[in-house]
């Protein structure tokens, strides 16, 4: 390990990234429930209130609409609020403020007003939680013009992407795969130059089929590629990273080569991100496709009781099954 690198978890990467952003710009404020002394229920803001004070790391009353609505006012005043929604399922009380106010203020003012607000949402399942703690609401926000939506999948991206989102002048819904917070470590080189925020990335090169994923399913997709390799099949894995706007260039390039594509996410398949991605691939890569783009995600039911969540979440077998089906055409 060189002097510039250290092994970190996603939680640590986000924490370090938030700290960097706060050091770089004193207009950056953190707001949310329990983000102060406790450091957030996942400890993502650990130690930040101690170092930056209660005026910059603000424990808010328990009202999500209030948190986002006051962030709009702070943004109008020139601040760059970063709000934490404690769990995905708790974002809905703030839905009106996000969709009608945060997303539209720039448009309504004909571009005169900027809304540099980051709304951090721990998302996805797999932590054995009670209901409302394991959801994947990304499509609801990606469907809304005026919002940008990104999802990090690993510690290094967490560190860079949160800083880039905060420095960005438009509102960003920032999705964090909560299952990964304290899981795998990765080596961070703080002196590296990060890729731009709104880009997708090939995380494993392959030749036979393309697997698209983001957030928590990137890890699943990489495992699939390893397993497929042992069976002599080469999968290319792309981490979409940005869900709105989508960065489809690398996806088209890959699918034109492989002719087969599977997209997986924890969110519901019906009208989910996969539906949009599949439609775009069909529009742009029609003559390259050997099979329809297949989607692997949640069934049309609410998130189930946690004892059976692993059955419900897309896993290695379900994704590989879909890959197999693309070869059956």
């Amino acid at each position: 390990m060189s002097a510039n690198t250290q092994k970190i978890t996603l939680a640590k990467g986000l924490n370090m990234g938030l700290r960097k952003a706060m050091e770089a710009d004193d207009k950056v404020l953190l707001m949310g429930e329990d983000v102060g002394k406790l450091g957030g229920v996942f400890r993502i803001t650990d130690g930040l209130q101690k170092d930056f004070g209660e005026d910059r790391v603000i424990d808010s009353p328990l009202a999500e609409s209030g948190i986002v609505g006051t962030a709009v006012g702070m943004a109008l005043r020139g601040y760059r609020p970063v709000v934490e929604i404690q769990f995905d399922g708790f974002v809905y009380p703030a839905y009106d403020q996000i969709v009608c106010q945060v997303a539209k203020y720039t448009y309504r003012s004909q571009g005169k007003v900027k809304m540099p607000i980051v709304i951090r949402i721990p998302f996805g399942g797999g932590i054995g939680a009670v209901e409302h703690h394991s959801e994947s609401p990304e499509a609801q926000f990606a469907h809304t013009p005026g919002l940008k939506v990104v999802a990090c999948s690993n510690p290094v991206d967490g560190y860079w992407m949160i800083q880039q989102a905060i420095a960005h002048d438009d509102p960003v819904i920032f999705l964090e795969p909560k299952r990964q917070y304290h899981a795998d470590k990765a080596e961070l080189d703080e002196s590296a130059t990060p890729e731009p925020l709104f880009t997708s990335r090939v995380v494993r090169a392959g030749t036979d089929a393309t697997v698209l994923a983001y957030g928590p399913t990137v890890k699943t997709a990489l495992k699939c590629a390893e397993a497929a390799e042992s069976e002599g099949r080469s999968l290319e894995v792309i981490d979409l990273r940005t869900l709105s706007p989508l960065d489809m260039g690398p996806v088209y390039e890959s699918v034109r080569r492989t002719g087969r594509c599977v997209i997986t996410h924890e969110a519901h398949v019906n009208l989910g991100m996969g539906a949009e991605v599949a439609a775009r691939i069909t529009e742009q890569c029609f003559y390259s496709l050997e099979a329809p783009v297949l989607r692997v995600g949640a069934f049309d039911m609410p998130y189930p009781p946690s004892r059976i969540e692993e059955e419900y979440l897309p896993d290695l077998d379900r994704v590989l099954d879909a890959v197999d089906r693309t070869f059956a055409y």
Partner: protein
Amino acid sequence: MSDPAGFGPDLAEVFGPSQSDGGPDLVQLLTPEGERVHHPEFDHDFSAEELRGLYRDMVLTRRIDVEATALQRHGELGIWAQLLGQEAAQIGAGRAMRPQDYAFPTYREHGVAYCKGVDPLRLLGLFRGVDQGGWDPNENNFGLYTIVIGAQTLHATGYAMGMQRDGVVGTGDPERDSAVLAHFGDGASSQGDVNEAFIFAASYNAPVVFFCQNNQWAISEPIERQTRIPLYQRALGFGFPGIRVDGNDVLATYAVTKAALQRARDGNGPSFVEAYTYRMGAHTTTDDPTRYRLNDELEHWKLKDPIERLKVYLRRNGLVDQQFFDDLDAEAKELGHHLREGCKALPDPKPMDQFGYVFSEMTDEIREQRDGFAAYLASFEESH
């Protein structure tokens, strides 16, 4: 008298009859008959010039409303939200503000916009359908009109929290100390956002004045549908003072709002002002109040007209002459001309420009959509 279940007083006991005078706690400095009365806590020594100024502001504000209503009837506006009867509440509040104070409006604060220096013509854009708010909020410290009921009260509170962080509260410097005026109506008082705004403002002691124009009606729903106690009394439950002021009395509204704003600027936190007034017109030009309220209620409130009572006072005390009224009449006519001609000349929005307003910088996705749409439109040109 209690209700059948034995809970609480009869609503009529709380609110009085529908032609209520606002109750014993109503702060008033000028009676509907134009008689100047004094209040032990909220008073202000108005100069003749100030009084003439407030009268002028109300007359011009009513003119804006009358012209816009007529423009809607002529098909020049799609809709208009009338403020008829609420001139005193809006001018009193608007004139109590300092330039550094910030107002967050609903969609009916035409008088407040006028006080903040927004050209009334720019208010018409939203209603004509040429834009969705044609002014820069930070140019006049006047937020965009907000149609989702009550949402702006949270923006106001957040903005006030920003002022606290900027060190412009409680410094003792009158040029520096600032506050926010959050506008909303009686209907909005039922919204979660408004109640959350109260809680955030109280929790952080934010310099915001919650200014509720209780005009008795939320489209067709009377105030009794929103609350079982007078609205201003709710403030206490949130931990800050509430005051009911005669919203048809520009002097009282000015004095009370000025005190509330000063309290906020001094760092003493939020307060609630309930301006007790009446929506003499319809909710908007598409509404028909004859379906849900009695005409004698309107006739009753006409006797409390905010402009007439100040006119009587000015005349009776010899503070104005005929020249004043003639000059004001000419000024109002000029304003009407400005609005009529200006409205018709407002350029239609350009479809291609809209793509550029979504984000601070156009994304490749949106650029592609814009270019595709432009090419599609151009294909018709070529075929001719």
